[in-house]
């Protein structure tokens, strides 16, 4: 019995990997334009459509398909866009019934759109369902006023998905045209060179005259989007771990010191073995999260948090060990392993670090006793 991805998955993955491998490693990393070009390259190749369910005009939306491709993007940091943005956009856009939103989805699925998701205002990543950005009702719809932080890909986005507080309180999801007047952006980069922007909205008009989702429904959608994005982020990190191990083995076999290859030294062999062990268990916790992602919100959230705790912790150590095994070149931007490490550090902090998710698991309301949770069935993702 072989647990392998299906033929279609394998085909698609191979295509994405080829694309990722073809992109040159830029020592300077991304600027906004280069990031936008990378987004287009992968979105047009089908990665955006993959994040969207078939009923929404995409061709999957299944967490394991997304994870499989996320791992490919994570193998090549500095050349690939952040898939968690695509996942967030796909889930949030799927909640809207308006024709304008349907058109956006269609463009997104075809890889012709670059939405940015303005959901974060600082602080607790899962506490963003009570935003400070205020929605005000006007004669012909809503305007938004307030600030968002670190919006990934915002300066080159053609649409902004924004969370805001509704006039009668409660969460509302809106779409804003970034070209509209009264949107101020200040672009900067994260430490792994991901381009982001802080955004100030001043009575900025929303695209549709109603929120694309509101109240409890909007809250549930946002949490679902965050959980799925977190799982995709973890899968990307895992791809980086796999790559780091492969790079390390290659390096140890090639690099000569003391008159023989480093691969001859048992201390280094065993360090690679420990990296494999950690990565193997990291892959397993991803499977668990994918299985739970089909289920109810509470076990799904708990599984996503467990996944983040395990993968962010082990990625720091595994990719950090890979960096160490490379010696001096490990810390240069001319060689991939340093990019992997930088990306893993940013991943480990974005959307809540391990301590944050441990606290979330401990807090009442999230049942962290995994033994009674019905683990769903997950189609398999084999190691690259």
């Amino acid at each position, binding site marked *: 019995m072989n647990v392998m991805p299906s033929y279609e998955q394998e085909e698609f993955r191979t295509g994405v990997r080829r694309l990722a491998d073809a992109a040159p490693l830029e020592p300077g990393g991304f600027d906004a334009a280069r990031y936008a070009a990378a987004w287009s390259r992968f979105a047009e190749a089908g990665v955006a459509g993959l994040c969207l369910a078939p009923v929404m005009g995409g061709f999957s939306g299944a967490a394991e398909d997304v994870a499989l491709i996320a791992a490919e993007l994570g193998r090549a940091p500095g050349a690939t866009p952040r898939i968690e943005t695509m996942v967030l956009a796909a889930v949030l856009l799927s909640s809207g019934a308006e024709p304008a939103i349907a058109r956006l989805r269609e463009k997104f699925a075809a890889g012709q759109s670059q939405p940015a998701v303005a959901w974060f205002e600082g602080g607790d990543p899962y506490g963003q369902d009570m935003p400070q950005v205020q929605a005000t009702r006007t004669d012909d719809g809503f305007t938004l006023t307030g600030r968002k932080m670190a919006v990934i890909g915002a300066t080159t986005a053609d649409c902004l998905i924004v969370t805001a507080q509704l006039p009668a309180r409660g969460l509302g999801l809106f779409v804003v045209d970034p070209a509209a007047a009264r949107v101020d952006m200040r672009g900067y980069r994260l430490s792994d060179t991901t381009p982001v922007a802080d955004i100030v909205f001043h009575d900025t008009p929303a695209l549709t005259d109603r929120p694309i989702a509101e109240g409890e429904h909007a809250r549930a959608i946002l949490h679902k989007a965050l959980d799925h994005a977190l799982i995709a982020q973890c899968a990307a990190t895992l791809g980086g771990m796999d790559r780091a191990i492969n790079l390390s083995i290659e390096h140890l076999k090639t690099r000569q010191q003391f008159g023989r290859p480093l691969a001859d030294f048992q201390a280094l062999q065993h360090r690679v073995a420990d990296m494999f062990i950690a990565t193997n268990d990291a892959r397993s916790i991803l499977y668990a999260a994918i299985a739970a992602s089909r289920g109810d919100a509470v076990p799904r959230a708990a599984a996503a948090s467990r996944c983040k705790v395990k993968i962010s912790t082990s990625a720091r150590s595994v990719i950090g060990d890979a960096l160490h095994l490379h010696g001096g070149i490990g810390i240069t931007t001319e060689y991939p392993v340093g990019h992997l490490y930088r990306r893993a550090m940013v991943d480990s902090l974005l959307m809540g670090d391990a301590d944050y998710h441990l606290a979330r698991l401990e807090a009442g309301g999230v049942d962290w006793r995994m033994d009674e949770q019905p683990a769903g069935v*997950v189609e*398999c993702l084999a190691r690259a």
Partner: protein
Amino acid sequence: MQKLGYSAEDFAFREEVRTFLREQLPPELAALEAQHSHLKRRDTDPWQKLLAARGWAVPNWPKANGGPDWTAVQRHIWDVEYGRANAPEYNIIGVGMVGPVIAEFGSDAQKAYFLQAIIKGDLHFCQGFSEPGAGSDLASLKTRALRDGEDYVVTGQKIWTSHAADADMMICLARTNMEVKPQAGLSMILLPMDAPGITVRPIRSIDGIESINEVFLDEVRVPASAVIGEADMGWTYAKFLLTAERTHNAYLGMLHRYLDRLRIATAGLGPAIRRRLVQLEIDVEAHDWSVLRVRLGEDERLGGASASALKVTASELLIRAGMMEVEALGPSALVEADGQASALSNWVDRGADGKMSQLLYWRAATIFGGANEIQRSIIWNTLAR
């Protein structure tokens, strides 16, 4: 496409297993197992008969040999539920090693006799592999089995032999050919433990229990038919066992048993240990799925690497869980597990009895079953190939 995880049928099966264990497992046996987990066969034999009657005595065996022919997921469920119910390990060498190797390589006569005897619990086995000079380096073992007419005469010394005093037979790895390279001249031979020339000396381990032994073999005479399969093929058979039973050292049941106990032991304690419990749960969950992935045959290309990873992880998790337990139990855990103190001292929590002893026993998990460094070398060799 292969699916991973539990289906509705699997959840129904879990209920069936839970019901069986709840209704059939004698509470006093479960209590005994929870306390020290080195039960004697007189304690476990009646239980094994119950399992045999249900058709579940040999969970890892295929139907053709009298096993339940469970799927990977069913076996996984069984392991977890069995451990959580404090059901005792029984005749693990017979069920886990002798049975599978005889089913694969044994003569028809050996199959006819031994497989049923193992299922019914009529024969208990101990494992005679390690020697004073051959621990991790198994190929260097010195015990010799010399051909003498229709017999073999076995002389040597085995060590770390669990339950030797309780076993009917030993599955002994001995050198039958001195002319070839070390791995090539080994045979697997079944020795009756009451044969003249066998002396068992118990070793008291740091857990305070005499479960392991030295076994001295002084010209033990057995017929040639005691050799499993063919002579000189012992190394091949041992390697077969490693691949056939790749999840043998995953200790799923024991780990889940620890988690259950830790949830109770840490209730009402401070945030630090409760946070460590959450972390342990996460790591056990990951390990759970790693075991399932190996059992489903995922990653066969890296099969050796994944199975070796299971052993390293499981042994480290067991020790971590045991450490947390004695910390959670506090001063009570300090007391030696002989039942005296808990009867006399009112400050000793009865639940603590035997828990330090168990931790001290499981400390050996990084050593036995192929030391963790052996596993790490297997992983490297598989990856770097």
